[in-house]
């Protein structure tokens, strides 16, 4: 591969800093020379890049954007800009930019104590819906790829639905839910399933994880029935599909 020449290396250093908001258009002109089309036009590229990043985050995390707007004008903008400064996009898939947003919100809550737990749970819910949708084929049952088992302290499913219908809607209080977010094994759309205890036990066995003590007394016949149901609902692959 050819080496980047000194003038090009200087160009990319300066423009990279501008596009990430680490320097100003005036400083870029001072370093590289004047811009015939004007300083504002050069600075506009920082705006363009931010627009793209905000679009990505909005598409992924619209419920959180709505909650942030409800809480305080400008909060969503500050959150995304802070997140972007710490986690600039580093992947060809634009949506990967959002991968760490849930953890970021959790850290914000730990440090500032102002971000509700609901927001990071919503972020996880939004993210795993996306992940399930785009997961590669041929991953078998695809735990944590096509199929996600989650326990939330808020009914994020109801919250996301209400916000999509009415951004000003009153939200339900805290309520623990256990939900499967998955891409249907055959229909290929992203769906939800609320498993019973036998279903969770069957999933643990299927994934090869240790069965929680509370599930030890669930009869095998109930677990077998749960497996049949999970396959019928497209949560798990049928044996013949796993063998392919």
């Amino acid at each position, binding site marked *: 591969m*050819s080496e980047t020449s000194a003038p090009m290396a200087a160009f990319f250093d300066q423009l990279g800093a501008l596009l990430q908001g680490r320097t100003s258009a005036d400083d870029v002109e001072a370093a590289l020379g004047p811009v*015939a089309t004007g300083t504002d036009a050069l600075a506009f590229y920082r705006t363009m890049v931010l627009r793209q990043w905000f679009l990505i985050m909005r598409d992924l995390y619209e419920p959180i954007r709505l909650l942030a707007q409800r809480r305080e004008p400008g909060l969503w903008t500050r959150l995304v800009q802070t997140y972007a400064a710490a986690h600039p996009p580093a992947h060809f898939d634009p949506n990967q930019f959002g991968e760490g947003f849930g953890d970021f919100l959790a850290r914000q809550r730990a440090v500032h104590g102002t971000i509700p737990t609901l927001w990071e749970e919503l972020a996880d819910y939004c993210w795993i819906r996306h992940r399930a949708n*785009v997961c590669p084929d*041929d991953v078998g049952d695809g735990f944590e790829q096509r199929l996600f088992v989650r326990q939330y302290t808020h009914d994020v499913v109801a919250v996301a639905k209400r916000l999509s219908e009415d951004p000003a809607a009153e939200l339900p209080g805290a309520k623990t839910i256990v939900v499967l977010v998955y891409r249907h094994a055959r229909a290929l759309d992203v769906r939800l399933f609320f498993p019973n205890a036998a279903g969770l036990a069957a999933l643990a066995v299927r994934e090869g994880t240790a069965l929680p003590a509370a599930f030890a007394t669930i009869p095998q016949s109930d677990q077998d029935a749960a497996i049949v149901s999970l396959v019928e609902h497209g949560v798990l692959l049928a044996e013949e599909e796993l063998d392919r």
Partner: protein
Amino acid sequence: MTRPTTTTGVGIGLRHQHFDVIADVSRRVDWLELVPENFVGVGGRARRVLARCRERWPVWGHGVTVSVGGPDPFDAEYLRGLKALLDDLDAPMYTDHLCYATAAGTYFHDLLPLPFSEAAVRHTAARVRELADRLERPVALENISFYCEMPGAEMTEPQFVSAVLEESGAGLLLDVNNVYVNAFNHGRDPQQWLDALPLERTWQIHLAGHVHEGGRIIDNHGAPVIDEVWALYRHALTRTGPVATLLEWDTDIPALDRVLDEADRARAIYDEVAGGEVTR
């Protein structure tokens, strides 16, 4: 280099908003374009729809993040996935943008202009040759919309495009809307600007809508094509002959029928000016 494909006619983009209907659409579509970044490493419904579309139409990839003119080494893992996708599509070429999109590991997810300089020509042409080698197929580059002439410019944009294509052996993906946007934003005559591009190297043409914002036009692919761009397209076809044309609509994407209405309008001009013969 001669055009590496015989596919002609008017195509549209394969977008997830149309996944429910595109594979079975009865209206005329000559070919499809996809954004490889939305398909590499992705399974599920996107792959299923793509497989069905591939049975009906040629499908070509038009990339946005390879950063053809950028400073970072190409993402080897992505290029492997991209090549596999293009192989699956039996794509005779790969198209991307004459721009950079990454720097120091950051993906800006925007198409960023290079300085119109000799150094940028040499830098970019070498990378285009490397890209073509690694993808094992010819590359065509799109003239992008630019809102600012970057510091260090030594030539005009058409001269820069010509020099990169000449030195790299790449084809021109002529984006007619971008010509109009650039001419408007920089106070030039669109037809003169278009005529200054190396039209003899045109392997594909793109059409799209744009939006006015303040004193600028922004190339957002989110509106119908305006009359001035249709006229410019007509003129371009008289210069290029029958070249496959893509009708782009990527923002505020409407129902498929609305996109196809716009594609039909392009096809009427295409048929009238370029003879109407379509090959796949």
